[in-house]
C-alpha cells in the first residue's frame, strides 16, 4: 500500500532548493492543488522542470509569478509573460529544451539510460557545447538524462496501490515524469476504494510514493 497523505502534508515535503518535475501541458493534466500547497509554504529557489510555465494565473505559472523558481527547464515559456520578463531581467535561469528532447531526457533519467541521441537541434544553438555523434552517416546530438527530487503528477483516478489512470490528453508528461524523480507524489481527482482494473492503469503504482488527497 502507498502512503496516502493530505495535500497539505504533500506540499510541506517540497523544501527549499528542490528540483521538481510537474506534469501538465498548459492547464491540462496538471496537479494544481499541490502547487497551491507549495505556495502556502516558503519553499523557494526551486528548479522547475515542465513542458511549459503555463499562464500567470494558474498552477505552475503561479510559482513563477511568486518568484519561487530560480531555474526553469522547459520547452515553451511563451504563454507566461512573467517567465520571459524575469529571464530577460536576469532574475531567472531558463534552459529551453525541444519538447521531444525534454521528454526523452526524462525517460532516460527514469529508465536507467545514460542519455539520448537525437537529430533534433543539429545545426542550431541547442547543439552548442554538446557532443555530436555520427551514426550511419547521420548526425545526432547527445543529450543527458534528467532527474529530479520530486515529481508532482496529476491523476484522473488513483487507487491505494498508487496505480493511476489518466483520461484524455492529461497523460502528456505525467507518465514519464513519474519514473524520473526520487519522490513521486500523485494528486488524483478521485481516490478509489477498490483497486483500479489492471487494464485501465496508465501509471503502475511501482513508480508512485505518495497519493495526496
Amino acid at each position: 500500500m502507498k502512503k496516502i497523505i493530505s495535500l497539505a502534508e504533500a506540499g510541506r515535503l517540497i523544501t527549499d532548493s528542490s528540483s521538481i518535475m510537474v506534469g501538465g501541458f498548459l492547464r491540462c493534466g496538471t496537479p494544481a492543488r499541490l502547487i497551491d500547497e507549495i505556495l502556502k509554504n516558503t519553499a523557494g529557489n526551486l528548479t522547475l522542470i515542465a513542458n511549459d510555465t503555463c499562464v500567470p494565473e494558474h498552477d505552475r505559472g503561479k510559482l513563477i509569478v511568486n518568484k519561487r523558481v530560480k531555474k526553469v527547464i522547459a520547452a515553451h515559456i511563451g504563454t507566461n509573460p512573467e517567465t520571459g520578463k524575469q529571464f530577460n531581467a536576469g532574475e531567472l535561469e531558463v534552459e529551453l529544451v525541444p519538447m521531444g528532447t525534454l521528454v526523452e531526457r526524462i525517460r532516460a533519467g527514469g529508465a536507467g539510460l545514460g542519455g539520448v541521441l537525437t537529430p533534433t537541434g543539429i545545426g542550431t544553438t541547442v547543439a552548442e557545447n554538446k557532443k555530436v555523434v555520427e551514426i550511419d552517416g547521420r548526425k545526432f546530438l547527445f543529450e543527458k538524462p534528467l532527474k529530479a527530487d520530486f515529481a508532482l503528477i496529476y491523476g484522473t483516478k488513483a487507487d491505494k496501490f498508487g496505480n493511476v489512470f489518466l483520461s484524455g490528453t492529461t497523460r502528456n508528461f505525467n507518465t514519464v515524469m513519474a519514473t524520473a524523480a526520487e519522490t513521486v507524489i500523485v494528486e488524483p481527482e478521485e481516490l478509489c476504494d477498490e483497486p483500479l482494473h489492471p487494464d485501465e492503469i496508465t501509471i503502475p503504482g511501482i513508480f508512485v510514493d505518495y497519493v495526496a488527497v
Partner: protein
Amino acid sequence: MELTKEQCREIIAKRVAKEFNEGDVITLGIGLPTEVANYIPHNLHVIFQSENGLLGVGHRDLSADGSSKVTNAGGIAVTTKPGAAFFDSLTSFTMIRGGHVDATVLGALQVDEQGNLANWIIPGKFVPGMGGAMDLVVGAKRVIIAMEHTNKGEPRIVKRCTLPLTAAGEVDLIVTERAVIEVTSQGLLLKEINPLFSLDEVIASTGAHLIVPDSLQNLVA
C-alpha cells in the same frame, strides 16, 4: 495591393489546405497554421495530430470549460474524430521524430534559400521557446511554412537567416499571401503568384533570389 491581416491569413490557410493527400497525418502549429484545418476539402480525409497527445483532432469543443481533459496543443478544448487516440508526450514525439507524421505546417520569423527556418526566438526580445517545433521540422516528412510574406514590409524570406535556427535545411514549401515557393537544391523556386500582386512586387518583397519559371501559375486560394 494592400490586404488586411485577416485576408492574408485566409488566403494562406486556404492555399495550404490544398497541399495534402488522402489519409495524411498532419501536425499544425499554433496560430495561423491551426486555421488550415478549417479549409480542408470535404472529400479529403486527413488526420490531425496534436503534439500534446491526440491523434484525430476534431473541432473546438464549445461546451467545455477551462478544466477540459481533451485539449489541443494550444490548450483549447477540442472534440475527437472517430478513430481518435490519446497518448502521452513520449508516444507523441515518437510519432513526430520517428517520421510517422506526413506533414507539418508551421509559422516562421525567417526562412532562407537553403530551407533553414527560424521561428522560436528573437534574442533579448521575444523568447517563447521552441516547443515541439524543432522535433517537428526534423521528423515530419514534409515541412510547410505558412506565413505572411513580410513583417510590416520587412522580408521574411531571406538569403540567410539572421535569427537562431529552428532547424537547418528542412523546409520544403513556403506559402504566403503573395506566393507559393518551393525550396529546391538550386534555390527558391517561385511556383505560384497571387494575381493581386505583380511579379515585381513579389520579387521586391522577397529578400532572397527567386527562380522564376516560364510556367508560373496563379495562386488560387
